[in-house]
């Protein structure tokens, strides 16, 4: 009963005309920056923070939240159409989404991405409403020990995720782990591989590395080929996914929503973890995993749902405990504080109309996104008609602006350009950069949590198996490993590779 009271209270806030307008502004800005590669929600929210100062607290949070999940929608659009992930969270969507576009199925891919996102967004809103308190309590049970085990699981998933040889993806994970050690070590304060460059003190920023390896490298590779892109000139009829598409995508959507909702709550998991995990799960569950990377619709639906669900449930620790799950949530805390609201567990009881208003606005916002995005799919598809000579310089420009904007650093622009060269080399030798990125993101956390767990247990490694959540996670790793090494799977993998 209390849940309905809360949701009604939230809806009464979210449905106020001015809040609907700010929600619309938020999701439109979000979609736009999501479509533009390189300009992410973090610099945008940072830039808009001062403008929210004069707004009501609920309105400003509703708008800023709209930018965040709107960007998740928009990010998949460029991922599908030009193989440039608009956001780091849509890296996985490139794999099958762009393949679908290449096969002339850009419309269905975009539509499935939008529908999956809407579905996940709707479910995640309910999840936030129902599970806020118990889920936040679970996340608080995660200490360094549980994080370490979770990260081990994530890295194993990365190896399974890569198509192609296990050796190559292992090598890439290791390379990622190694460049992840660059910077001042959190546990000891020792600077590693920084060569006295202050810009390296905090390690290599994930965004320029990802944009260089995935975005610019692909553009360079594209430039080599003659411009024979399939310019999609379908009618809107062809943009609507078929019944078979929907049927194939729906279970993936469900699983992705579940995975995203669960992983989004964990602080520090980051935007990359839910879609990567969902993709790995889809590939694992598929009857014919070799279709993945070649335009499998489940490979779009699962990660897209996971990514949107994760984006929304990452608000749970913020709204219920005042704890930021990621950098963007930290900005939201800044926005709250600028409004004179002390973020923390008391916000939920002291400002219920704010908390539930933001939660309810996520549903109205998702509905707006679906309404404005499905008709606009045609517009995004027509982007494919823009000739490379106009599109590529524009993308490169936006990438440079976006990279610079993260921390006003020229170093990051050079880093991105350097990674573009490395990424081009990877394309030429046929290795997947995705495991490298995961190694880079998860490696530092893996090390930090492992060493912290050891410091706190006075060097006793048995904590990893005596604590139940950690033991369960490590158990899954062992099962995965056993499955991977089993003769049956090895044979299947070889078959898949020889195809």
């Amino acid at each position, binding site marked *: 009963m209390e849940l309905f009271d809360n949701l009604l209270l939230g809806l009464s806030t979210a449905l106020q005309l001015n809040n609907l307008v700010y929600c619309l502004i938020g999701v439109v800005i979000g979609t736009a920056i999501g479509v533009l590669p390189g300009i992410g929600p973090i610099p945008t929210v940072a830039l808009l*923070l001062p403008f929210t100062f004069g707004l009501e607290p609920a309105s400003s949070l509703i708008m800023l939240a709209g930018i965040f999940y709107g960007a998740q929608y928009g990010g998949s659009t460029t991922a599908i159409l030009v193989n440039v992930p608009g956001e780091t969270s849509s890296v996985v969507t490139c794999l099958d989404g762009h393949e679908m576009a290449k096969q002339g199925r850009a419309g269905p891919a975009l539509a499935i991405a939008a529908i999956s996102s809407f579905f996940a967004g709707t479910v995640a809103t309910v999840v936030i409403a129902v599970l806020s308190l118990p889920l936040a309590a679970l996340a608080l049970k995660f200490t360094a020990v549980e994080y370490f085990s979770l990260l081990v699981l994530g890295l194993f998933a990365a190896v399974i995720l890569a198509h192609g040889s296990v050796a190559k993806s292992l090598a890439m994970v290791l390379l990622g782990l190694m460049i992840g050690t660059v910077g001042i070590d959190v546990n000891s304060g020792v600077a590693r591989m920084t060569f006295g460059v202050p810009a390296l003190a905090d390690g290599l920023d994930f965004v320029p590395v990802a944009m260089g390896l995935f975005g610019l490298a692909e553009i360079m590779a594209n430039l080599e080929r003659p411009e024979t892109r399939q310019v999609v000139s379908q009618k809107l009829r062809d943009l609507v996914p078929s019944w078979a598409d929907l049927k194939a995508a729906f279970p993936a959507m469900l699983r992705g929503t579940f995975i995203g909702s669960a992983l989004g709550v964990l602080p520090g998991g980051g935007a990359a973890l839910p879609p990567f995990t969902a993709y790995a799960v889809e590939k694992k569950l598929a009857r014919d995993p070799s279709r993945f990377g070649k335009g499998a619709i489940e490979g779009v639906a699962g990660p897209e749902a996971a990514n949107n669900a994760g984006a929304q449930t990452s608000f749970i620790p913020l709204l219920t405990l005042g*704890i930021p799950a990621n950098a963007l949530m930290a900005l939201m805390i800044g926005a709250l504080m600028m409004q004179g609201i002390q973020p923390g567990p*008391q916000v939920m009881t002291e400002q219920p109309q704010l908390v539930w208003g933001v939660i309810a606005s996520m549903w109205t916002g998702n509905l707006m996104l679906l309404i404005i995005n499905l008709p606009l799919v045609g517009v995004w598809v027509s982007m494919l008609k823009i000739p490379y000579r106009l599109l590529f310089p524009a993308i490169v420009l936006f990438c440079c602006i976006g990279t610079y904007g993260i*921390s006003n650093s020229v170093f990051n622009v050079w880093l991105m350009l350097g990674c573009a060269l490395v990424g081009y080399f990877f394309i030429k030798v046929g290795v997947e950069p995705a495991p490298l990125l995961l190694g880079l993101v998860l490696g530092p956390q893996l090390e930090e949590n492992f060493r912290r767990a050891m410091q*706190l247990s006075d060097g006793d490694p048995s904590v990893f198996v005596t604590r139940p959540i950690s033991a369960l996670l490590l158990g899954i790793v062992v099962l995965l490993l056993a499955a991977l090494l089993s003769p049956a799977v090895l044979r299947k993998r070889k078959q898949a590779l020889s195809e």
Partner: protein
Amino acid sequence: MTLRLFKAAVAALALGAAFAAPASSQTFDRPVRIVVPFAPGGTSDILARLIAPKLQEAVGQPVVVENKPGAAGNIGADTVAKAKPDGHTLLLMDIGSLAVAPSLFPDLSYNVENDLAPVGMVMFGPYVLAVNPSVPAKSVAELVAYAKANPGKLAVANSGVGALNHITAVALARNLGIEWKNVPYKGGSAASRAVVSGESTVIINGVTATLPFVTSGQLVGIAVTGDKRLPALPNVETFKEAKLPLDDAGTWQALLTSGKTPPEVVAKLNAELQKILAMPEIQEKIAEQGGMVRPGTADAVKTWLSTNTKAWGEIIRAADIKVN
């Protein structure tokens, strides 16, 4: 044709500027930027964005806030240290970081004393010393007794190796003759989270980040720094009352500019800063940040810096804390 038109336009603009220049014989002739050497959303960033519009009215030039995070604030500080010394590039940060930088970083790319000129203190925010409820202590005396009975059992979460709350924890332990683990985290909010979850057990951190957990009972407040008790925690004693050292530890946010800036420009900036800090709305917003306004001269900041650089430096060397 268009080129000629363009040239004409440029000439007209230049002429306009030339005429405008003598008319405005003021100190500020182009946009002023306030560099915040941390990511958006933190205390320094919020203060800078609070002050910027007021300063803009005062100097008659646009004032923009620029976040230059990285290397514990050294990248942003270095930018200001190497900027043209005309008062158009300002730095807003916790100057505790500047006091420890020379001792922590042997190859610092700038000299805190010579390359940066203080403009004035902005605010002081006290620290709260708090523990996870699993620790059987409700006061400083009980905490010290527990720590002495269980050496090495308490784990103090800090915001990173060499962070001020790390050094404060080290100094406290040495002074009280107790032994506790110092567990580094990536930033203050990760550290508070870890103490709420019970991964670590003790935290010394800013009021803004810590107070909500104490009032909700997820953490137990033990003591606060600063002159007097916090209105929100009337039963929590101050460091001074508990006879703890470092009773003025906390966040000291100050405005600085490039080192060779002419004294009259610094004086003008300080005068404007004092006017801004006297505004009731600014004081209110700063109180919401858990801090109090600290009006004062540029020299007061200079003295603070040299005293604390020396004092923290001794602790850092004695405890052999290194970041390199």
